[in-house]
Each structure stands twice: as C-alpha cells, then as structure tokens.
C-alpha cells in the first residue's frame, strides 16, 4: 500500500522568528502583513487571547504598548530560507517531497513496513525540529485527504505528540473520523456542509460511509473523490483541489529533462498566468509568490539542483501582470545553467479575500483608478479566455515594476541570507 505523509510546520512564521529570538518562546507573538497592516500569522498564545488572522494591527496596538503581545513585520526572506531548509531535511530522510505551501509538504512514505511507519514519522518529526529549529506535525495515511486529517489530529490531540499514522481499517481511524466535523475535511466547504447535513451526513465518518455513486450524482465528482479518499482509496493528485484555498499551486513536469531557459521561462509564465486566473476565479489576492525548479532526483548520475525563491508582492494582488513580473524575476535569479530540470512551478501564497476592502487602507496604497483599470483588464482577459479557449489572450514578457517602499518597522534581521544581518551571539 502506498502511504503519504503530510508535514505541517506549527505557526510557521512565528516559529522562524523564535529560532533566532528564543525569548519569544511561550509568548503571544504575531507577524503582520506587508506595510504592517494586519496580523497574518499567530502563535497559539496570541490565538488564546482571541486575536484572529486578519485582525488590523492598529486595533491591538495598545496591547503591544503594554508589552502584553509582540508584533513583528513579515520577513519573507527568512521564512523562504527556513522553508527550503525544512524541505531539504525531509528530502534527505524520505523518498520524495512535494511542497504544498510554504509550510506544508507531502512526503512519500513508500517502502516502509507497516510497523516501521510510526518510527519513521517520529524520526522526521525529530530531525526537522533538531536541524532547523522549526516544530512540525506529521500525519501519515494512505490518501492525501486522510493524511491531512491525521496531521490535524497530530496537532490538536495531545496524546499523539505531533505524530499520527492512520491505517484505513483501524478502529483508531474510525473513532477519529466520527469525531471530525465535515467542515474540517479537506475540500469540503461551508456550503457543502449545509447541503450534506440535509441528507444526514454530519461527520467525516458519515461521508466515508455514503455511497460514492450517489454523492457523485447529487454533488460532484470532486466530492465523490473525497469520499473515496476518506475510505483510504487514493484518487486525488496534488493539483486537483477545488476548495477556495489558502495557496494556489500550479506545477507540472516539463515532459522531458530540459536546461533550456526559454522553455523553462515559458512554462513558468504559463503556471503564473494559470495561478493568477485561479486566484481571480476564487476572488482572492496573493501576498507573495514562490517559484521552484527541480532536477530529477532519480538521476543521481546528473548534478542535482532544486532551488526555490519567494518574492513578496508590493501589495496583495491578483493582477497577472504583477504576478508574472514577480515570477519572471524569481526565475531569473534561481535558474542556473548546466542542470537538466524535470519540473517547475509557481505557488501563490498568503491569500486573502479580495472583497475585504479595508485592506486597501492598510496595505500599500494603490489609486482607485489604477485598481479599476487593472480589474477591468483582467476581467476582459478572463472573459475572452473563457469564451474562446484558454490562452486566447496571454501576456508577453512582463515589464519590470517600479520601485516600492514597504513599511516594515518591526522586521527582524534576515538572519540566514545576509552577511550583515547574522544573528549576534553574546559570549
């Protein structure tokens, strides 16, 4: 049986800060969006104070002044580097890693006997923590949907101590599925929960017991797949998800090994464009983009190089032009001659709801006219592509953007990527 693991970093941005500033361990700490607008990452201690994702920073400024909470500006350069380190450790100790977001990675668990899986999962858990300082939770199961649930259990239920391995027909899995609410199942949105409740399906277990054919008739193929996945039958690949997502990933292999920059640039451009379309169709904006390339790990006779780069966007956006400009620059920086790449992709990170207009007050300002122009242009582009087939209208080479000045008053040092910002240790 194939098994898949999901490794999820705990409060990732905050954990990155804590590696270099251990005085923040155990304290309520939050990380703010660019321009210090609102809170985008929270430690458990901060969540316990009732502060939520998206809370405007000014609303809790008084707590900062009283020294009761700590807010930091986002430091994507640090987070990107730490994420690459986590991935590298996982690659060393597993048969393959697929990043799902900056802080979540799927890990192949092939080739382990049943009784070895828990031991191996614990090893991943321990090694990532020791090598990088980032605490993680590990969930292992036969399908991605179950791995996601296992990960959630590992995080929420203390007895698991951060590691949960689920075998499909075990009592443990059954108990867990009965406990888990439908809304916490990967790919089941709020509206779906309401519709399923009408026909008596309330827990993950109920859904797993439902007739997949019926689910397909009454709902969708996607939900049928989720149903099968909950039973332990794998049928979801990385890019299949239709939930409104926290991140959008577009990637695929090039079809052959290639070192040709123009081929790779074209592929990355298409991924960027496709990602931006998905972003608009789910009405979100992205704060950052990640571009990655991978050589073929099974060709050990060839030199290996699997770089990635995160680029913070000047403001949350779903404008293809800004996104392609960013992916183009990122690719330029990571591409190296002399390697044969197998795969590449674009990830859009830290998504927010485009409808939340208040953000424009806090994020880097963009003039109304500018935004309307952009919306109109992107709307026309999507409409043409919808009516006349994908790629009817695409963008050419992106133009380099203007210079921006971000406010980042409380940004920690870029400890791992700048010589003049290394952590200082007093001896």
């Amino acid at each position: 049986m194939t098994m898949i693991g999901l490794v999820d970093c705990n409060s990732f941005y905050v954990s990155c800060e804590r590696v270099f500033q251990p005085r923040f361990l155990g304290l309520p700490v939050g990380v703010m969006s660019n321009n210090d607008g609102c809170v985008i990452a929270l430690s458990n201690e901060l969540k316990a104070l009732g502060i939520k994702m998206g809370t405007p920073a000014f609303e809790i400024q008084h707590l900062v002044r009283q020294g009761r909470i700590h807010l930091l500006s986002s430091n994507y350069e640090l987070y990107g580097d730490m994420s690459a380190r986590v991935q590298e450790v996982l690659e060393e100790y597993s048969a393959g890693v697929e990043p799902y977001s900056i802080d979540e990675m799927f890990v192949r668990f092939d080739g382990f006997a049943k009784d070895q899986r828990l031991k191996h999962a614990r090893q991943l858990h321990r090694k990532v923590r020791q090598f990088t300082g980032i605490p993680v939770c590990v969930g292992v199961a036969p399908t991605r949907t179950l791995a996601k649930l296992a990960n959630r259990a590992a995080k929420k239920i203390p007895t698991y101590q951060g590691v949960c391995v689920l075998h499909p027909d075990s009592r443990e899995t059954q108990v867990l599925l009965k406990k888990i609410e439908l809304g916490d199942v990967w790919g089941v949105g709020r509206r779906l929960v309401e519709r399923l409740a009408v026909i008596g399906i309330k827990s993950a277990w109920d859904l797993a017991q439902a007739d997949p054919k019926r689910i397909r008739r009454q709902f969708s193929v996607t939900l049928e797949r989720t149903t099968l996945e909950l039973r332990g039958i794998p049928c979801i690949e990385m890019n299949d998800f239709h939930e409104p997502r926290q991140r959008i990933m577009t990637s695929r292999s090039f079809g052959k090994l290639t070192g040709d920059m123009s081929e790779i640039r074209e592929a990355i451009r298409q991924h960027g464009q496709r990602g931006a379309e998905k972003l608009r169709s789910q009405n979100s904006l992205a704060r950052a983009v990640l571009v990655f390339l991978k050589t073929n790990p099974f060709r050990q006779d060839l030199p290996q190089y699997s770089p990635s780069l995160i680029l913070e966007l000047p403001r949350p956006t779903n404008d293809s032009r800004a996104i392609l400009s960013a992916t183009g620059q990122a690719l330029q920086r990571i591409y190296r001659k002399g390697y044969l790449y197998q795969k590449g992709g674009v990830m859009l990170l830290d998504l927010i709801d485009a409808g939340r207009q208040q953000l424009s007050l806090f994020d880097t300002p963009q003039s109304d006219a500018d935004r309307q122009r952009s919306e109109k242009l992107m709307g026309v582009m999507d409409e043409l592509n919808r009516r006349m087939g994908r790629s009817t209208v695409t963008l050419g080479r992106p133009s380099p953007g203007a210079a921006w000045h971000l406010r980042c008053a409380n940004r920690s040092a870029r400890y791992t990527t700048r010589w003049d910002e290394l952590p200082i240790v007093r001896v």
Partner: protein
Amino acid sequence: MTMANLIPAHPAPPALALPYPLALGRAGLSGFPSPAQDYEGRTLDLNERFVKRPAATFFLTVTGDSMEPLGIHEGDTLVVDRSVDSRPGHIIVAMVDGEITVKRYELRGEVYCLCSGNPRYAPIPLVDMECQVWGVVRSVIHEFAV
C-alpha cells in the same frame, strides 16, 4: 531596489561534482596522462569543507570576550551545525533564559556545565535551569585586517 525584495530561499551554492567532470586532455607527446589531470578544472569550495549539512548550518556573529582563550574573538563568525548531537567537550550555542550564548559543554564530576573560556566567568551548572542546546560550533572564521 526592484519592485520587491528578491529572496534567495537557499544559501548554499549547488555542490560541485568531484572531481569536476571535464574531458581529460593529454599531456605531452608521449601520451601519458598528466598526474595533475584529476584536479583539472576543479576549484576548491569552502562550503564543501566547512558546511557539512547546509540545511542545518547557520552563521552567527560573536560579540564579547569570554571565549577568547578558546580562540573565539569579538567579530568572528561561527559556523554552527544543528544536526550534530552535542557531547561534553563541544563548543555549543545554547539557549539560556531566552538568550542565545556560546559556551563549552563540560562534564565536571557528575554535573554538566556550560563553561566560558575565561576564568572570570563561573561555570553555569545545568541544574534546574531553562537551558537547551541550539547547535554545535564546527568552526570559527577569524578575519584579520589587511
């Protein structure tokens, strides 16, 4: 600055295949290969020597004088490897009361201690203390003014 900050998500340059695979040439007329050929085209990479495990390696800048007898001076750069399990005798980076510091990890009698290189500072016994190992110092980079 360009439109946004470019962020290198990985500090280590790609590893060089060793010996660097260049087509071998022939030396002289006799057709015997030159003994230097194995090293032809190869450059020495300090990362290869000092960074054993890039994902777990961090650089830290030193301030203070307590480790001078052990060869660690103000302004030096420490190469710290978190993947090494610490043993007595190692110079380690430790978290003590929420701060990171550098000490020699020692076993004195039956008590594990963090010792500084300077007798002016008393050893810190590791009993009832919030103390964790952050990483093990593998090397020190000391630059001279030139």
